[in-house]
């Protein structure tokens, strides 16, 4: 029998400054032509496992290692990174950090150049890879000008150039719209069919299943919780921890009726069990003047127009999600409304008043803007300083700071963290930093929140918990969110604005917007299993339910008939 591409035996690894091992007692083999899906919540050891396979551990990350990792039959400890690079291709999670070439060709050539490959051979491979990865149209372009999806494909192209036996891909779907994700998975599937081994780390399991993995490794707290077939995994996986296809969730609810009673209070406020607060009884009142009104809005970056005449009204008491492909203008819409980008045409009104009458700071009192990455804003020595920064800028009475800080922490459940006020913000976990970013926005006491990619960088469980907490914040009137996460948008929003190439192509309740499948797909969006399930069981007049709520209703026979 041929030697597996990867053979891991009894692997335990502890980082030099850590007190506990990041992974323990891992045994694993990956055969040629096999696709292994590695899943698990944040911090479960996925990244460490990847580093152990590709040789960064121990070559670049010193620590305590026991057990062995063999690639092509040879111990990684005995191979140089140069040798490993010719066998294993790794695509990191954030392509913006992985891409080192200033142009597409330079990026593709980088690996072969490092291995001393002949120039003619590099040219030949660039041509092949451009075709194979579907990036021929990108040749000649500067990498800084590429979209997130294009960068991800280029990052994969850079690895294809080395023609490795094994591809290790770390959360490739995190920054991609569904259509770009499907394209990437197609490339990986083809590689597997050609006999290459693929290790893909992804917590968006439903989408990763399109890759038709042969086996799943599920990690929890650094240990193997499950290693086996996909069907076996779907039977044991926790739907709260990883995003599963709806049929798998339903099967779990049918086989275990006790799960019905474990559904969280309100993953979506439509679900009928919403928390108390203004958001608990939302819905746009047509007679009420909108909070935010766009009339023929045009805006962009320099000479490049991104928004081509947007008309939209966002209500004072509603949750609106903006969906669309990468680069379609979703974030630009709200940045323009906050006067962070220049309006080049049309008008934007806030509570009936043109935004030009207000400064960015004044707009921040109406809209709490939560950026995608909390690290973009955290700078202070303590959480207390961080939370008083905004009110101080707006000239609020320092005597009220104590109350503002307490209120913001309570509304985001950060008050339960020990010594939170004196903690340096950057020592908090990523999830806590996300909540701190939310608290910072709330410290300006805005009635409306704008969330830019609220689920980015979080696993399924923490993203859901974050959204639950946001929906439960008392005193909020409205939430506007921009996201790639289709199901998150559909289950939380009253209304969907569907964007494509800087224009609104649909505007309506979730079930109505997803009804036109052709339009949905044309916007690079994925018809998820949850969409199909909602269409089947809820009917068009119903609300769009999250997987657990709908599964519970179907399992108990309370869902609308198909």
């Amino acid at each position, binding site marked *: 029998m041929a030697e597996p591409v990867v053979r891991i035996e009894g692997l335990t690894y502890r980082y030099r400054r850590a007190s506990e091992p990041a992974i323990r007692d891992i045994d694993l083999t990956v055969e040629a032509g096999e696709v292994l899906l590695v899943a698990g919540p944040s911090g479960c050891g996925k990244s460490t496992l990847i580093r152990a396979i*590709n040789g960064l551990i121990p070559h670049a990350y010193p620590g305590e290692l026991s057990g062995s990792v063999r690639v092509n039959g040879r111990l990684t400890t005995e191979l140089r990174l140069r040798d490993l690079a010719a066998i294993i291709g790794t695509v990191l999670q954030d392509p913006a950090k992985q891409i080192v070439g*200033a142009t597409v060709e330079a990026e593709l050539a*980088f690996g072969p150049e490092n*291995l001393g490959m002949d120039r003619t051979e590099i040219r030949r491979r660039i041509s092949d890879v451009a075709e194979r990865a579907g990036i021929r149209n990108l040749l000649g372009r500067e990498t*800084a000008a590429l979209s997130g999806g294009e960068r991800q494909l280029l990052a994969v192209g850079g690895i294809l150039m080395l023609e490795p036996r094994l591809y290790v891909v770390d959360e490739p779907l995190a920054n991609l719209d569904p259509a770009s994700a499907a394209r990437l998975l197609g490339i990986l599937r083809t590689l597997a069919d050609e006999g290459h081994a693929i290790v893909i780390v992804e917590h968006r399991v439903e989408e990763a299943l399109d890759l038709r993995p042969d086996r799943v490794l599920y990690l929890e707290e650094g240990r193997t919780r499950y290693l086996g077939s996909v069907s076996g995994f779907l039977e044991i996986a926790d739907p709260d921890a990883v995003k599963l296809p709806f049929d798998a969730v339903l099967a779990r609810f049918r086989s275990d009726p006790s799960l019905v009673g474990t559904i969280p209070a309100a993953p979506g406020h439509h679900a009928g069990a919403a928390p108390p607060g203004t958001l608990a009884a939302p819905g746009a009142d047509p007679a009420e003047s909108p909070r935010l009104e766009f009339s023929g809005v045009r805006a962009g970056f320099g000479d490049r127009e991104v928004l081509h005449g947007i008309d939209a009204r966002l209500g004072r008491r509603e949750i609106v999600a903006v969906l669309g492909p990468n680069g379609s203008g979703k974030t630009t819409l709200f940045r323009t409304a906050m006067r962070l980008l220049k309006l080049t045409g049309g008008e934007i009104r806030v509570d009936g008043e043109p935004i030009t009458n207000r400064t*960015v700071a004044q707009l921040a009192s109406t809209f709490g803007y939560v950026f995608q990455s909390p690290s973009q804003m955290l700078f202070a020595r303590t959480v207390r300083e961080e939370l008083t920064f905004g009110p101080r800028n707006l000239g609020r009475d320092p005597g009220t700071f104590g109350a503002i800080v307490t209120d913001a922490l309570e509304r985001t459940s950060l008050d339960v963290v020990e010594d939170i006020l004196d903690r340096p913000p950057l020592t908090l976990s990523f999830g806590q930093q996300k909540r701190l970013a939310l608290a910072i926005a709330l410290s300006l006491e805005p009635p409306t929140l704008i969330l830019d990619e609220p689920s980015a960088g979080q696993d399924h469980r923490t993203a859901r918990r974050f959204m639950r907490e946001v929906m439960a914040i008392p005193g909020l009137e409205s939430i506007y969110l921009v996201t790639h996460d289709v199901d998150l948008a559909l289950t939380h929003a009253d209304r969907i604005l569907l964007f494509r190439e800087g224009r609104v192509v649909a505007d309506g309740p979730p079930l109505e917007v997803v009804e036109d499948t052709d339009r949905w797909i044309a916007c690079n969006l994925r018809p998820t299993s949850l969409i199909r399930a909602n269409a089947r069981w809820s009917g068009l007049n119903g609300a769009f339910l999250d997987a657990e709520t709908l599964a519970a209703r179907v399992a108990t026979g309370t869902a609308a008939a198909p």
Partner: protein
Amino acid sequence: MNFAPRYLGRGSWLARRDPRVLVIAVVCFVLAAIQVWDLRIMLILDLIAFAYYRTARIPFRQVRRQWMLAILFVSLLVFANGIIASGRIQRLPEGVEPHIYGYIPLLGTPVSAESLTFALVQFLRFLSLIAVGFPIAFAIAPDVFGVTFARLGVPYRFAYAIDLTWRFIPSLAEDFRSTIDAQRVRGMDFTGQSRNPVARVRRQIPVLVPTIVNAIAGAEDTIDAMDLRGFGTGERTWFQDLVLDRTDKLVLIGFGSLLVVATIGGLVTSSSVLWVPDAILPR
């Protein structure tokens, strides 16, 4: 968002040259210019420098700010040099005494025909150096910086660091701009800056800290990505092929000749001595 390095001279005659020519031209020109103190010859060098600059076809409105900053910096430098030198003038012909117009109040620094000419030559020299140097930034394709310096004998790790700089300056600018936006929506006002430099730096902390922290955190991923593709582990090839064509060679001969002429001229003529126009001497 496009923050790509500005390859503004794309397609121009100079951008079509082997990029090594642009680097060597600057070296030759600098070595030639620093030997010249005759105002008339410096004017000729400026003409050459700006003629060369024009061949890069860099749209002025897109570099206006850089030119303004450069001219401001050079003016300050020349002025400060005049003050610090207290009116002492280098490269005066032997036996010539400065023709003093008067003295700067409080400082007492003499202002003479010679010191003004000296300052003017310095100013013109710096201007010519900027004109010859700008095309390196704006007329070399961003993906050939590394190979250019590597082919000029710079070790490839350093040469690639230049490539990386060009690659990550736009990303850093993007992060910087995002952080500014993130702080603006927290009510931070970037207008009405204090004149106190310390206060100005302190006010930038909310922007600088996140930008720097993110850059350091991101660098780890970049280093991993480079390691994983075998960077720095052995002999390296360069995909870009640089070949000097006939025109490149002629340009190099031209700048090389300029250096030779300036060097020989400095030895056998008065080109390295300050020349003061009669017209500005006090009667």
